[in-house]
């Protein structure tokens, strides 16, 4: 993949993530129940994050570094290779 196509893909992904939902779309999205698996996965990630970075300032610093790595590589898994955590 060349840089241009990577950049283009990133742009499209960003555009999709940043678009504004309609009220109906939002209501529909928020009405989807949280599954047990989703809840357990999220709780594990939160527990890991708080355990690994036990203070708010440490968490902020980590995310700052992770974002820098992500923008440098274009790969969110580089931010948290063991958890695949920050892929949003």
């Amino acid at each position, binding site marked *: 993949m060349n840089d241009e196509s990577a950049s283009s893909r990133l742009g499209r992904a960003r555009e999709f*993530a940043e678009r504004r939902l309609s009220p109906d779309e939002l209501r529909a999205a928020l009405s989807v129940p949280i599954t047990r698996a989703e809840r357990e996965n999220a709780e594990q990630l939160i527990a890991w994050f708080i355990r690994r970075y036990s203070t708010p300032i440490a968490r902020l610093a980590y995310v700052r570094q992770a974002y820098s790595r992500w923008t440098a590589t274009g790969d969110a898994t580089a931010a948290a290779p063991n958890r695949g955590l920050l892929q949003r």
Partner: protein
Amino acid sequence: MRGSAFDEAEFFRSIDRSGARALLIGRRALVILGLPVLTADYDFWIHIDDAASFNQAAAPFDLAPTHTPQEARARGRYALENDEHVDVLVAREVPTIDGQKLRFEELWDRRRTVQLAADVRVHVPCLDDLIATKQVAARPKDVEDVRLLTILRDGESQ
């Protein structure tokens, strides 16, 4: 000061000491509360009378406002920029996408204060209000954040 040299703790300390009524919203608030999400920017909702003091707090970090406080109040939002980007909402109230009004004064009264360091506090909305703020921009990533915040809230209430 270039972004690479940006001292996050000092930035929050400066805001705290300014006396500006400033709520950290957006994903950095989620991070502080323990949710591991990526974000580039800082998002604040400040009291409509506090733009000048907020800007003064950001000035030592070479963060320049895109609009004067008067212009910002008329527009409802502005940004502070250098290598960093700080989005600032400066409005008495904002509507969610389904018409619910979120009022700064009410969110401020219900705020949660987090100690970043011994002498640094940051104020974030309570979880219910943070969830509501996610329904203002109402983007797909906000839906994901609402789900995470809901799980966090459910865990705290148990």
